[in-house]
Every structure is written in C-alpha cells, then in structure tokens.
C-alpha cells in the first residue's frame, strides 16, 4: 500500500494512472448525472410551497456543497505540499482552484436565479450569501497569487498559506444559516435527525451530488496532468513522451 502511494506521488506514474482513470470516471459521472437529471426533472414531485421552481436545488445545492468541498481539498493538499514538500499535492491544490471557483460561481448564480421568484430579490447581503461570495474571492485570490509569482514552487507555497488561512470561512458558510436567521433557509439534508425532505427529492439530489464529486475528480485529474507535463517538461520521460507524438 505504501509502495502504491509512493509510486502515485511520482509525477510520471501519476500522469500514466490518471490517464487511465479519467475516461472511466467520466463515464460513471455521466451515468450519475443523467440518472439524477431524469429523477430530478421528471420523477420528483413539485414542492408543496415552491412548485416547480425548487428543481433549481438539484444543481444549486450540489454546486454549493462542492464549492466548500473543493476548498477543503485544496487547502488540505496545500498543507501536505507545505509540510512534506510533495510536488503532486501542490499540483492538485492549484489545479483545484479554478474548478472550485466555477462551482462557487454556479452556486451563487443559481441561488440568485432561485431567489428572484421565491424571495422577490436577486441578492441580499445575508450571512450565507456574503460568506459564499467571500469564498469566490478567496478562490480568485489563490489563482491570482499563483499566477503572479514566477517560480512555481514558491507560488505554490504562498497560495497554500493563503488557502489555509481562508479555511476559517468554511464553518462560517456552513453555520451561517443557523447563527443568523435571514432569508436563506436552514439545512434540510445535513441535519442529524432524519432529513425533512421527500425521498423522491432526496434521491436525485444525492445522485447529482455524487455526479458533481466525480466531475471534480475528472477535471482535477485533467488539469493536474497538464500541470505535471508543464513542470516536468525538462525531464527524460516527458521528452520521450512528446518526442514520439
């Protein structure tokens, strides 16, 4: 097992293995997503309060969950890179940032579009929305900082520290709906007692959540492969790889 991880951490093996995993993960992801969309748009009943508009939830909630999940992965990988100087962890951390930013953007925009018919406004400065917006700025800050520093290893260290400091925002986002009571509704799924949601709505929601996780896995592997090639461009194995093509 340890040998497996050691091998995986070497950029060359990672590049090869990721190339094998990507198509499989993509197919499984598509399967979950299509089933989730079918269940969510055609099988799940309308909401007794919100009618059909609640179907935005099937992308809004998975996107919002992923916006936080990707951030934690990014900060965790950044910490591993800082502590053990593991190149691959740095690469995963920085490859996660644009994906996380896009999920955060999606959560904010779909939330806004859902808010208009339900709350009567596109935006309020309540705690949930504001802290999610700060999350978007954290992602953009990480990307900008990484691109501003020429030496990529120094850049990775600086961005990892920024990402770690920003982790404080994650519990704020999560608990914001409990600490401050405003327009955003409270949690219905991640409660400790039984979720107060119809099973026919819960199933497509969970299917979409799994699909989004797999989607992130696919894209982070694709991006990391590019980053590996870029950083290892002067090594023998990359020269052999590109010389053939």
């Amino acid at each position, binding site marked *: 097992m340890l040998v497996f991880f050691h091998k995986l951490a070497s950029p060359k093996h990672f590049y090869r293995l990721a190339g094998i995993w990507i198509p499989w993960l993509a197919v499984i992801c598509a399967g979950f997503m299509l089933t989730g969309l079918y269940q969510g748009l055609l099988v799940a009943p309308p909401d007794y309060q919100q009618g059909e508009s609640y179907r935005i939830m099937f992308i809004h909630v998975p996107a919002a969950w992923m916006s936080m999940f990707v951030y934690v992965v990014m900060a965790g990988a950044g910490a591993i890179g800082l502590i053990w100087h593991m190149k691959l962890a740095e690469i995963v951390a920085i490859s996660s940032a644009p994906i996380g930013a*896009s999920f955060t953007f999606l959560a904010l925009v779909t939330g806004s579009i859902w808010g208009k018919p339900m709350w009567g406004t596109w935006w309020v400065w309540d705690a949930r929305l504001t802290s999610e917006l700060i999350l978007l700025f954290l992602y953009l800050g990480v990307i900008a900082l990484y691109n501003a520093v020429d030496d990529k290893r120094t850049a990775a260290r600086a961005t990892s520290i920024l990402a770690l400091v920003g982790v404080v925002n994650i519990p704020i986002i999560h608990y914001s709906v409990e600490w401050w009571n405003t327009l955003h509704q409270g949690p219905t799924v991640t409660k400790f007692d039984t979720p107060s949601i119809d099973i026919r709505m819960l199933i497509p929601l969970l299917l979409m959540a799994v699909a989004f996780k797999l989607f992130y896995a696919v894209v982070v592997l*694709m991006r990391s492969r590019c980053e590996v*090639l870029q950083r290892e461009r002067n090594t023998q194995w990359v020269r052999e790889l590109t010389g053939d093509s």
Partner: protein
Amino acid sequence: MTLSEFLNMGGYGFYVWTSYGIALVVLVANIVAPMKMRRKLLADLARRERRARKKQ
C-alpha cells in the same frame, strides 16, 4: 405531462432553465479548458523536441 407543460415548469420555466443552462455552460467550460491547455502544451513540447533534434 406534455412537453410544453414540462418546459413551462409551472410558470418558473425561465428561472429553472436559465439555471440549468448556466450549469451546462460551467460544466462544459471546465472540461474544454484543460483539453485546450493539453493540446497547446503537447504541441509546444513536440516543437521544442523537433528543434532539439535538428541541432544534434
């Protein structure tokens, strides 16, 4: 349920389909960006390799 009923989404069609449309754009952009990056990178590296061979 007819198709037009489905598209109408009980009057919320605009909001629901705009959300799903933006989601589609975001997901496609996420897939396309690394594919483009990879194609460009491989082309650059192959060009460099050809140049290096000529010099030898």
